[in-house]
């Protein structure tokens, strides 16, 4: 994430050679920092500073990873845990994009629609989703839909707010200029509003993806027997901190990968980001 921001900053200040040099060495600094922390982490365990139950060493986590890859965790292969979680988050996230973006855009264009939905969106958005779990079970039961719903509700609201905000951010003069040229409502939307809002839409979608991925743990606390979030919670119950650590590392890496994927998609679909 920081790399992406640094890259964007570098594009703008391309003239300053020294800045560019600093930007180029940043990945190196990051890699070195991560390696140093991992080394210190390993040393803490190897030298007995911290007990293995409190902080399993990277070597132990790696060993656990190998074990789980071979035999699975609780009769479910590790790849299945990963796949189940990605599928849960992915489906809910896609549904959130497909419903949240149109609703947000309409709210941005029409003050009446905005006034209609705003109270609910603003009330639900900051709500800790863990608080919804008992209700979700009573309403939707303990099946997959409950898990889907928790992730969906967490992501869709921030997408709606982001999309509405993106429309509002489009300059009045740009709209007026288009109006003067006599564009139809559709043309206004297709050729003025959409291109102008897409960069910001991508940003809110990207943030929402992060939120959805973090809600995974809450979702998989509902009667799950597979998935990375469930694995972390369940292993914690038995103080299997090595499995917890492994789950955290996997969640982190996959989350990072998904974020990169969105950034990549943004570069392809909205190459004008940052030049508007």
């Amino acid at each position, binding site marked *: 994430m920081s790399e992406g921001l640094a890259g964007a900053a570098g594009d703008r200040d391309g003239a300053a050679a020294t800045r560019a040099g600093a930007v180029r060495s940043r990945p190196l600094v990051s890699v070195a920092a991560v390696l140093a922390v991992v080394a210190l982490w390993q040393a803490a365990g190897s030298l007995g500073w911290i007990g293995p139950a409190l902080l399993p060493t990277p070597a132990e986590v790696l060993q656990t990873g190998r074990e789980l890859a071979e035999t699975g965790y609780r009769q479910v292969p590790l790849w299945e845990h990963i796949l189940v979680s990605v599928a849960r988050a992915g489906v809910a996230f896609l549904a959130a994009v497909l419903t949240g973006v149109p609703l947000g855009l309409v709210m941005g264009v029409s003050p009446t629609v905005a006034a209609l939905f705003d109270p609910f969106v603003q009330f639900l958005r900051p709500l800790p989703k863990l608080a919804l779990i008992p209700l979700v079970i009573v309403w939707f039961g303990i099946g997959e839909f409950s898990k889907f719903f928790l992730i969906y509700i967490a992501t869709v609201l921030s997408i709606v707010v982001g999309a509405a905000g993106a429309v509002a951010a489009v300059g009045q003069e740009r709209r007026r200029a288009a109006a003067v040229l006599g564009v139809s409502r559709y043309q206004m939307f297709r050729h003025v509003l959409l291109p102008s809002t897409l960069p910001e839409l991508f940003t809110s979608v990207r943030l929402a993806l992060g939120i959805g991925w973090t809600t995974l743990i809450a979702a998989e606390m509902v*009667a799950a027997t597979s998935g990375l979030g469930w694995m972390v919670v369940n292993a914690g119950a*038995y*103080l299997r901190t090595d499995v917890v650590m492994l789950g955290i590392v996997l969640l982190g890496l996959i989350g990072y990968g998904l974020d990169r994927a969105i950034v990549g998609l943004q570069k392809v679909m909205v190459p004008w980001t940052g030049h508007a």
Partner: protein
Amino acid sequence: MLKHWLARALAVASLLAVPLAPAALLSSLASSAAAQTATAPAVPEVVRLGYAGGPRVWMLGKADGSYEKAFGTKVQWVPFNSGADVLTLLAAKELDIVRFGSSPAVAGIIRKLPIEVIGVSGVIATSERLIGRAAVKSVKDLEGRTVGYPANSTAHYALQAALKVNKVDVAKVKQVPLRPADIVAAWKRGDIDAAYVWGPFTQQLEADGGHEVLASRDLQKDGYYVWNNFVARKEFLEKHPQIAVQLLRVFQKNVEQYKRDPEGSAKIVAEHLNVDLAAARSTLAGIEYPELAEQATLKWLGDGTDTADSVIAKGMKDTANFLAEIGEVRKADIPDSFAPWINTRYLREALARKDAAVKP
């Protein structure tokens, strides 16, 4: 000092390196390094006792303050939801002595938590039961149906044992881990056909069309004992052995009070915890309370020399093997015997004192 500063900094740093760290782990890591006393006074400033929040006999002592009196210091009562939380709290050194279930205690020992079992607080007889709908007449009937249970609990252990004893095809049973309150919600919606849980939730299911299929006591004849124990941090025991002795003595008095007057005791406990009297009555009656004198025999913990052959030591080993079987712990991590983690010294001292007190 430096060591602890380093440990803390490191715990935080390593978690910063991996995003999405659950807060619980972070706080447990950070505070574990922080909680350390420099000197060891004879009586600690405060004794932190962990309790499950449900109606249990030692709540009599919590209600009348007899633990404070016996310890000669303050008591901080730390509530927890399930044995799973206890392990985290013990690892973080946020608890000194705790009363909790056998299977999470065994899981903690396997994970090398520095803790010791100092006594048995009760054997789960009918306080934890398998409740089913009308169609579930026997454990075997769970095949093709859904059953709920609280994860890593004594009820979870008992459910697995019940499935095994009754030769149920586990592949045909849909088992869902749910928190006790969520079990009731799932039951009301019709999502589960049965649940293995404790009071007052069992009574709630029964009030809503459920009936008892099996109680944990029924598993004893097949060698499956489910009990609650007093567990203490080793470090605390070494510094304050007298607190452990006093705790067992007061507990014995609570048990005697309950046996003398079950109804009055249930009332006190129900009022103190603000729970339903009927639920308190049935939960308290659903636990068997072995006498301290009995506990120091092979029937329970042994006298320290023969502890390896005691029922509890064997029960812990069985529990460990079972946890490995279902994949929660590594087989290789299980010790040969659990006797080193059972310390009957405090039990014996409490008994010696009790004898002295009995004949003035």
